[in-house]
């Protein structure tokens, strides 16, 4: 229940961090909030020889917004994001997830970058960020690239991030008029409880009230957050009503590839996804309508 012997490296710039990582990978991890990593190291779930502390890299801090959208520095904590006025005003659907993430103490430590880069299937931030078309900024000694977040994850705790890259920020475009998003999660307990399933929905409504685009993202029911293509195909052009949302829920359940674990069976997760999808879509639709009225 103690940290094993590891070598610590303190990076103060992004360049330093990526250099260190390039040198020690795969025997190294970036250490930010530590709320996942330290648990994994203490319990022996993860073993590593080097920790690259990035907590003092100022370039990774801060929530900033302009007309085009929101930039969330990788080191922004869940609590900071939840308290950000611009998030409350213009990106409120993020609050559905960030306010329910773990417990208050953890939210004061855990970073948004960590919630993404841990690539844990049950993480709460990826589904809503994907539904809102977020992309992830990756920097390496040779340059910077921006990847749609849905393409970032490859499997449980595995991502496309290269050994010499670091996630510097999450970028969320300014939602256009007629767009609404929401995140619905199910957990056994009302706080401090991993999602059994989580569904985010992003809905773009046409001027005539029909659905122009729909991004339904399923969390905790597949090796990675799952952007459900069949749901999108089905919903486009339909009216945002209970009937179509109900069918969308059934399609989402069919798209899910859940496992059975301590939190629930695969069948139960599918059943829950049906309900959460309908509820997330209904909430997203309500919010979309509010932006146009």
């Amino acid at each position, binding site marked *: *229940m*103690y*940290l*094993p*012997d*590891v*070598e*610590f490296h303190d990076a103060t710039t992004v360049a330093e961090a990526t250099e260190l990582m390039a040198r020690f990978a795969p025997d190294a991890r970036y250490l930010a909030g*530590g*709320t996942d990593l*330290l*648990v994994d190291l*203490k*319990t022996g779930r993860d073993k590593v020889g080097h920790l690259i*502390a990035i*907590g003092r890299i100022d370039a990774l801090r801060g929530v900033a917004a302009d007309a085009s959208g929101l930039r969330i520095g990788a080191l922004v904590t869940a*609590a900071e994001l939840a308290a950000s006025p611009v998030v409350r005003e213009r990106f409120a659907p993020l609050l559905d997830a960030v306010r329910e993430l*773990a*417990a*208050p*103490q*953890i939210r*004061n*430590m855990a970073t948004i970058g960590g919630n993404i880069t841990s690539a844990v299937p049950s993480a709460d931030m990826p589904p809503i960020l994907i539904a809102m078309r977020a992309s992830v900024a990756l920097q390496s000694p040779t340059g910077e690239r921006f990847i749609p977040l849905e393409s970032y994850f490859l499997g449980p705790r595995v991502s496309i991030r290269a050994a010499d890259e670091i996630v510097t920020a999450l970028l969320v475009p300014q939602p256009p008029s007629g767009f609404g998003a929401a995140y619905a999660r*199910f957990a*056994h*307990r*009302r*706080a*401090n*409880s*991993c999602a059994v399933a989580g569904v985010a929905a992003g809905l773009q409504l046409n001027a005539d009230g029909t659905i122009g685009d729909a991004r339904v993202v399923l969390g905790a029911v597949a090796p990675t957050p799952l952007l459900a293509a069949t749901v999108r195909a089905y919903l486009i052009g339909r009216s945002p009503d209970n009937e179509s949302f109900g069918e969308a829920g059934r399609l989402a359940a069919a798209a899910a590839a859940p496992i059975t*674990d*301590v*939190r*629930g*069976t695969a069948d*139960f997760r599918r*059943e*829950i996804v049906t*309900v959460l999808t309908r509820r997330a879509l209904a909430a997203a639709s309500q919010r979309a309508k509010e932006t146009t009225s």
Partner: protein
Amino acid sequence: MSVTRTLTVNGRKYTVAFDDGETLLDLLRNRLGLTGTKKGCNLGDCGACTVLIDNKPMNACLLLARDMEGRAITTIEGLAVDGALSPVQKAFVENGGIQCGFCTSGMVLTTTALLRENPSPTDDEIKTALSGNLCRCTGYTGILRSVRQAAGMTKESDAAHEDTPSFGDRFSTVGSSPTRVDAVDKVTGRAQYTADITLPGTIHGKILGSPIAHGIIKRIDTSKARALEGVLAVITGADVPDILYGVSPARYDEYVLAKDRVRYVGDQVAAVAAIDERTAEMACALIEVEYEELPAVFDPFSALAEGAPQLHDRYERNINTHISHHFGDVERGFGDSFLVREEKFTGNHVHQAPLEPCASIAKWDADGTLVLYTSTQVPHYVQYMMAHVLEMPLGKIRIMRPTVGGGFGGKAETTPLDLCASLLSRKTGRPVKMVFSREEMFRHGRGRHKQHMNFRLGVDRDGKIRAFDSEIYLDGGAYTSFGVATAYYAGSMIPTLYHIPNYRYEGYRVMTNKPACGAMRGHGVPQPRFAFECLLTMMADELGIDPVEIRRRNAMDPNTITVNDLDIGSCEFRATLDKVAEKTNWNEKYGRLPRGKGIGIGCGGFVSGAGYSIYRGQVQLSHEKGRAPFEKRSIFPHANAIVHISEDGTAAVLLIGAAEIGQGSDTVLTQMCAEALGIPPSRVRIRSEDSDISGLDLGAYSSRVTLMGGHAVARAGRDVVAKMMPYAAKLLECEASEVSVRDAKMYVTSDPSRSVPWEEVARQYFNDTGPLVGTGWYKPPDGLGGDYKGATVGTSPAFSFGSAVCEVTVDMETGQVTLDRFTDYHDCGTPINPRGVHGQVEGAVIMGASETILEETQFDNKGRILNPDFHSYQIMTIRDAPEIFSGLVDSYEPRGPFGAKEIGEGSTLPVLGAVAHAIANATGVWVTDLPITPERILAAMRQKKR
């Protein structure tokens, strides 16, 4: 690697060197001596280690000390200024926000941060802010009340949440709710739990557990562990006594460390002592053990099957205990019944999960006395078991019980930590401290038995019970522990609540390759009680009789000998039924709520102390290994108290071995002692932590302390008063028989204006006679119980009774249950401290509800626990907790001190059935397996549709 940093803690700068990977928690506790910050899980799940970093609550177990330079760190020790409590601390002290105290530091700090940011939070905001701080004792009710008070909200009337009968001026302090005697120590972080104590020269121990569920140890090589720098001793099965130990004397079946065979994942194989805990842990990993793996069994039915692997040679077919009880004639009873219904129910394997993990420190004094500090509910039984295993006289063993952070039955037996620390200390000549991690707590087990129950109940046309037949298989795990008693309790308590003229119980406790199960709050009874309550309600519904009414018709009456020979004295069970029905508007609600809304009733009660001690005969000397024949009386007193009055007469020191484990026994014993002495409780100081200065007390189990300890302290108090009487009479110039005592005065009964200060009389006594000391002891009445095998289990001087109504909302699409409201009424006799009683009820409601809908220890197919942490083994948070109304009915138990009975365990028993019924009422389907998860609710609804 070592690093040096300057940290600012509570406004003070500390320049300190520490290991690079050290957490802030370990640094605060081990290097700065700030032990008010607690280690409850070490993985960020429980909040006991909450500290403020720049006024934000964070888990110190997940912060690295190396990152803390330049941050303002506040611990619990930093809140009180010049000894004056902060407003938040004061509010927790005054509003029942503290029981065991282990969560208190974190709760208080989180609250402090919340109120700095948001001085007038809503209840919802309070609950959100505190949702990362787990509490296992209070049911969060007292905590919520404390935070509201700290936020300066207007004092709510207690009547909104509580109903306590009035006593007029029958008593002075009994029946009132003075502040807990330990509250200030707990709210300031001063209270010392075992792991907080560091004796000079302390070294640290760890135990290596088996990685496999069943196997023979072929070879152990400890050479690499011994060679590790900082390791001082390594012991294996070869180094421990060839003496079996356990709880039930007829079934001692554990060695301190496995001699040749392991029977569950975690079974103790070796132990290490080293300069620090981390080194001991690393050394354990270096011990090489070669096993020959044996086939294992993980459920009682496979274990019973022909050809199943046998865990112990002595338990044929893996049957640890078989109980066959038949009272009256059940078949005839069923023949007389109008309706007979048979149902199967399954319980769950849950854990007590006290926030404080087990811990021990052992040292040997120069004269050969073993001094053992241990987090225990039962100091005497630990002393007894140490004497047994180490072959020493009891008199050479001194048990210290520091502050205990909750027990609930999980600390009711001698632990491997007690034994290994003692052996390692003897070997190294240094004090050895050993603390279980949260994972080790789960792996060591001793949780609640999972029971497989097949029940058949017969009732007549009016719903009167004619016969009850039950068959129960208890999944025992690998060793006996308390299991024999558990299996008996599972059957014996059923006939105490309702009149059951014909009763049969077949019980089997079966060994499986899992951690041993033991005693947990309500010992053996909650699951059968849940099942019985469900079945009774099902049949009431079937007959068209209101479920409350069917209970009234069958309810136990006072002064009844039950069918299994238990002697019921006071009993106001019907009054509790009437009260909960009235308070909840039951008649307007039951059967009239919309789909998804439910209301349910459950009832239960418990013993107020076991009628007999766990071992027979007299207090055993080390050479008396044989078992004394059973006699139907207590050979020795179960509780003993000494009251010593200070020479100036201003203070009474109460010496008693009763274990304060957070339930509040120090406070109620102080009150009862004060009542008997005729002085205010503020003049009584209790010392209950040291076996050297107090007499034997059997401990905090079977809800015995208030009744048995209460009698002992009241008698000791009266003994003092009796000694003072002649002196008072002399000073008052009257006969001793004319003197009364109350409110620190001794006075002439017929003319209270003729009085003399209490302390003056005490001084006179001392001047003439020397020390003013009173003693008192308590033995349960002789002859308790019937004359059949197992008749002792369930006997008690008195029984409690209670009814609970639960109201829920069920999400009909996800199966998620929201507990809206709980209403509980209890017959606990005289409530010595009503706030303490309500606190026990509130805690029991949340613990009981949590095990009904959330908790289950899960295993993989190799016998490994899948959720040995508070992340996946989920106990309720403050956001899951419902509003609770706790009421008490007027009752007086002639066999209890001042009329008191128990509350701690009896309050758990109605809860499970009430929750289950409320869910059934909301959904139209019964879930008969615990826990009643959303998944099971949806499955049952689907089943019904088909």
